[in-house]
């Protein structure tokens, strides 16, 4: 597909130790090491197993509803008055976000390994819902770890998980958000190592998770690359996605990494503003460190203690980022930028009013960045963004704020 040799490609990471440059790796307790090695072996075997590939494709088509649509956002394009804006409609997936792409892949892998019990962590609840969904489908037990604060602010998703048959464990340790949910999920996995499979929800954690999650999500970019070429007869000039851990972004970016003419932007959550310290922008405001099984950029203090992230979006509220993003940042291939809560809120409303699409708060960050640059581009240029989730889950948080501003 690409004319670059493997040596020069941005797409042949990680190395066999799971390193993306200095990032990634396998920083886990010995109890988990044999399991992680087993997961790696099962995943590698699955890559050449036609039965597995066929089964995954079957569920992608008939259960998730792939390929997801490629949509020309005509009214937003007119509003911005610059380049044409296209949306990859991954919010139309079953369960309403990109998370299911990864979950179905890992659940099928768990099934292949003979595991019938699943662990998942969740922030906004989208990964938890996707995991609970796959577990219902494949008759597996599902234990979801969710920060107690997130259980409060994402109640509709908690109800969905319970209805689907999952057990939701509210996590009160630490600050009760996604970081603590991940700690607790890892602790639970250490304690149930022989019986459970841990479905990590983002492209982070110990090797092979960052690469495996990226590969399951890359269906987004593979489809999008074909669809945009079909629609426009050329590659896009820029592609944009929001980043918490970064799995939807890598899914979109990875198939485009060797297309040199394509500018790539990852949008982190700037929360109340980077300068306030209340944000979740690990690349913009963090330094490399080791947490949750991998080395990557982390929000931390001078003594290596992890700081709490903050964002209006529970799905971006994480003090780290997938290790491949850390590497793409250092190589300069991807530009990492940020958008604040206020920006995201504005574009949440704008997209709803102009396109009839209620975006999740997460991709609203991507839209906000696009709003800041697309007007300066030429009308024959093309920007593609990943609409990675729908906003129903955010209404409880967003509506009071819009009401307060008199914007409803």
């Amino acid at each position, binding site marked *: 597909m690409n004319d670059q040799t493997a040596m020069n490609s941005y797409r042949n990471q990680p190395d066999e130790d799971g390193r993306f440059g200095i990032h990634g790796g396998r*920083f886990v307790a010995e*109890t988990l090491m044999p399991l992680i090695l087993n997961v790696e072996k099962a995943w590698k075997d699955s890559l050449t197993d036609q039965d597995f590939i066929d089964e995954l494709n079957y569920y992608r088509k008939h259960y998730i509803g792939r390929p997801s649509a490629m949509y020309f956002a005509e009214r937003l394009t007119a509003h911005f008055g610059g380049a044409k804006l296209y949306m990859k409609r991954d919010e139309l997936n079953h369960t309403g976000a990109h998370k299911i792409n990864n979950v179905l892949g890992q659940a099928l892998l768990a099934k292949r390994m003979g595991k019938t019990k699943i662990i998942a962590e969740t922030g906004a609840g989208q990964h938890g819902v996707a995991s609970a969904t796959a577990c219902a489908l494949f008759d597996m037990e599902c234990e979801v770890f969710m920060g107690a604060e997130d259980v409060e602010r994402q109640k509709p998703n908690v109800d969905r998980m319970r209805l689907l048959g999952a057990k939701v464990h509210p996590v009160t340790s630490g600050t009760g958000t996604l970081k603590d949910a991940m700690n607790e999920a890892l602790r639970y996995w*250490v304690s149930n190592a022989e019986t459970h499979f841990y479905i990590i929800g983002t492209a982070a954690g110990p090797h092979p998770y960052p690469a495996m999650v990226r590969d399951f999500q890359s269906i987004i970019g593979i489809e999008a690359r074909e669809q945009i070429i079909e629609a426009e007869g050329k590659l896009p000039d820029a592609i944009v996605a929001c980043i918490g851990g970064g799995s939807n972004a890598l899914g979109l970016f990875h198939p485009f990494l060797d297309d040199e003419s394509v500018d790539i932007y990852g949008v982190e959550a700037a929360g109340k503003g980077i300068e306030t310290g209340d944000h979740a922008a690990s690349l913009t405001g963090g330094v490399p*460190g080791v*947490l949750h099984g991998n*080395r990557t950029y982390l929000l931390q203090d001078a003594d290596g203690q992890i700081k709490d992230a903050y964002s209006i979006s529970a799905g971006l509220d994480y003090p780290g980022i997938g290790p491949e993003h850390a590497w793409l940042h250092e190589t300069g291939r991807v530009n990492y930028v940020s958008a604040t809560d206020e920006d995201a809120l504005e574009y949440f409303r704008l997209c709803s009013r102009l396109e009839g699409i209620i975006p999740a708060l997460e991709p609203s960050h991507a839209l906000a960045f696009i709003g800041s640059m697309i007007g300066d581009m030429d009308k024959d240029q093309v920007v593609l963004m990943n609409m990675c989730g729908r906003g129903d889950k955010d209404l409880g948080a967003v509506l009071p704020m819009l009401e307060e501003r008199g914007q409803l």
Partner: protein
Amino acid sequence: MRIAAAFEKAKAEGRAALGIFITAGDPDLDTSRQILMGLPEQGVDFVELGMPFSDPMADGPSIQAASLRALKAGVKLADVLALATEFRAAHPDVPLILMGYYNPIYIYGVDRFLNEAKAAGVDGLIMVDLPPEEDQELCLPARDAGLDFIRLITPTTDDNRMPVVLANSSGFVYYVSITGITGTRSASADSIKAAMERIRNASDLPAVVGFGIKTADQVREAATHADGVVVGSAVVDELANSLDEKGAATSATVSKTLALAKELASGRQRDV
């Protein structure tokens, strides 16, 4: 040398060596210093000093809380090293092992940390989140600096993996007796016995058992099979129970914690 000598001494006395874990700076530096200094007199043969970390992913609620108390008290890695220096001055022969997670060391700087730890009189390191696959990070530099890198063997470490885990380890072998986090369930004597046999077949290092050992009776039982026994969460719990409502030390904190250490030391003698 101190580690080997301590196990030799215990062996010569027909008993196991007792190790006690406390978190440095829990609930504050001064109280922690008094407890640390008093441990050897209670019959404790070696000390594992926990380096507080915000996200201790292999620890149960007790040691998580201890870490957070220490961090709240403002304890830094440099303070932990200073405590180690004081301990070494007072107790020239008692092995001191630092236990924790990699990130604070990575941020402090590996070489700087190793030089200062060696100078402080630290004997070894136990790093929960550094498996042999990451030996180049800290294990190999630690050995070059003259510090033992003590490795955890767990119930999930099978016979094929055992040599990989033992390859660059020294000091002693720490057997995590349960698949779980610290301070939760306890292993059966039979499973400990079987694991000790597996480890002795694979290594000449002293075999130490920990995780889930809480009482003097459990120490006595484990001592029948192991060269050493470590108690952590139970000691941390005793300390926590003595704190006031705000989590601050009381007049009973040091004495109660040391009294438990003494009681646990009574279990060092093997069942016959």
